[in-house]
């Protein structure tokens, strides 16, 4: 289960709509809890794929991931997962997503149809890498506001 603030979820949706028809991508920053994760902030990243591929591929380069991790550390947060969009495609992970994923992280996928968000779903990869399992995405306001 992944809990996310309404503010963060809105930012994800807006990012996905504004990058349409290209895939957008970014980091989810928050905390690993006992058996779930919570997202306090998002960290948008610029899709590093070349123009012709951006409609159905995204890439976050390792140096950008590290930049995000540094930022997260500075705010006492961890990278708990990633979000990206599927323009004119369902919010379900593809074979390509599966081959490029690691377990433990949450993969939030936004389906954007004709420029508007149609669905947002979250997925985790099984430990044996065989498939993704959908996890519950719950909108929840933070109990304590994050130090600015």
């Amino acid at each position, binding site marked *: 289960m992944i809990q996310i603030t309404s503010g963060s979820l809105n930012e994800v949706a807006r990012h996905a709509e504004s990058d349409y028809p290209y895939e957008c991508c970014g980091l989810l920053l928050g905390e690993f809890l006992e058996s779930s994760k919570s997202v306090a902030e998002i960290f948008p990243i610029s899709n590093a794929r070349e123009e012709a591929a951006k409609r159905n591929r*995204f890439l*976050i380069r390792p140096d950008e991931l590290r930049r995000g991790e540094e930022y997260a550390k500075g705010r006492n947060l961890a990278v708990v997962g990633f979000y990206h969009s599927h323009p004119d495609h369902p919010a379900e992970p593809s074979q*390509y997503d599966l081959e*490029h994923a690691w*377990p433990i992280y949450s993969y939030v996928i936004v389906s954007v149809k004709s420029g508007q968000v149609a669905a947002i779903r979250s997925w985790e990869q099984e430990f044996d890498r065989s498939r993704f399992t959908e996890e519950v995405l719950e909108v929840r306001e933070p109990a304590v506001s994050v130090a600015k």
Partner: protein
Amino acid sequence: MQVTISIPTALRHFAGGNATIRVDAITTGEALEQLTALHPELRKHLFNDKNELRSFVNVYLNEEDVRHREGSSTPVNEGDSIMIVPSIAGGATAAPEVKNLPELSHEEIARYSRHLIMPEVGLVGQQRIKAASVLMIGTGGLGAPVGMYLAAAGVGRLGIVDFDVVEASNLQRQIIHGTADVGRPKIESARDRLREINPHIEIETHETRLTSENALRLFANYEIIVDGTDNFPTRYLVNDACVLTNKPNVYGSIFRFEGQASVFWAKRGACYRCLYPEPPPPGLVPSCAEGGVLGVLPGIVGAIQANETIKLILGAQDTLVNRLLVFDAWQMRFRELKLRKDPQCPVCGEQPTIKELIDYEAFCGLRQAPPTGELEEISATELQQQLQRGEDIQVIDVREPSEYQIARIAGTKLIPLNEVVNRMTEIDSTRQTVVHCKGGVRSAKAITALQQAGFPGRLINLRGGITAWSNEVDPTVPKY
């Protein structure tokens, strides 16, 4: 050597919950083997079933990606840190770009490996490079580095247009040609060199001048045109033909130690005419033969052109479209100017008036009747005879001081072309005056300028300049 491996958060669960693990190894590859031996569950998240590191897993040795070193054979030292950092990649299933792209052979994969491991290129990018076709106009100063780098990159089909022959003075900068090629058609020399660089690509030679009659037909067969020409009429011809055939025009130009580069693409913005609606008056901008050029400069500009061509093939967003890069190699400064389509542009604007290729020589003012019609001329041999007979002739040399250093005719007075009108009084109008330069063109201009300024004396042009003097009269005078 003892090294510490930092485990990314997501994988700590499979590494016994540890954030760091110490192992003993001599290479990074061995370190990872040790790691997965200690924690076998980690293995499948780092390696695929061919035992290769998964493409999205990056290994850093002390902050440096081992891909920039020796990969898994990168040696480690005592106390080094290894970090495992993923690239996060993914996307929807349908991958249209993979359809109809040519396969790469094992040899090609080995050859292009440094492209394949970059996310900006990758296997698909390299396939697109192989599927691409580029026509290079000219295989001289600019065309040399362009051709060599595009061939090295694996552009599947390269066309070259050039009708010239290799000369010794080319070798200072046209590095695609060698000493043994002097006297050969440039196109054959270029073809041989490019084949040697990369035998996997197709090279199509067009030993012809590019004209309004053949340009459209030639351009139709290629996706991208690279302008490596050295004269204004051809630049306008290339531009117009690119606009009419809707192709991008990768432009480069050089003068002494200044270079320019851009990508003109009418469907995305400015074309060459939007920037330079009219050519300069003939003779104002000297060619390399007249003005000189720092040999390495076209190497720099041509490499930039090759860079932009490859980016266009890969579909990169940040190309030089609508940007003019201006570069001074002496001061080592780059400047950039923003370009915009001129809505009134006669060829690519909203109401184009040029819908066919025109007479570009006339457009550039080169068809005007040359003033030599009214100019008195003398040959080098005749001048020599008159001097030997003791006739009273003053000979004025209108070349630049640097040229005077290289070679001169004895007894001549140097007044460079751009000073000749101002220093008119230094020429004795009561004597017969012969004016010379290197080839006879500048001296003709000097005479016209002096006559228009009211010089009363008799002015005679030395036909063929000091070059003719060296050929006909005194071979000890060097030609340059």
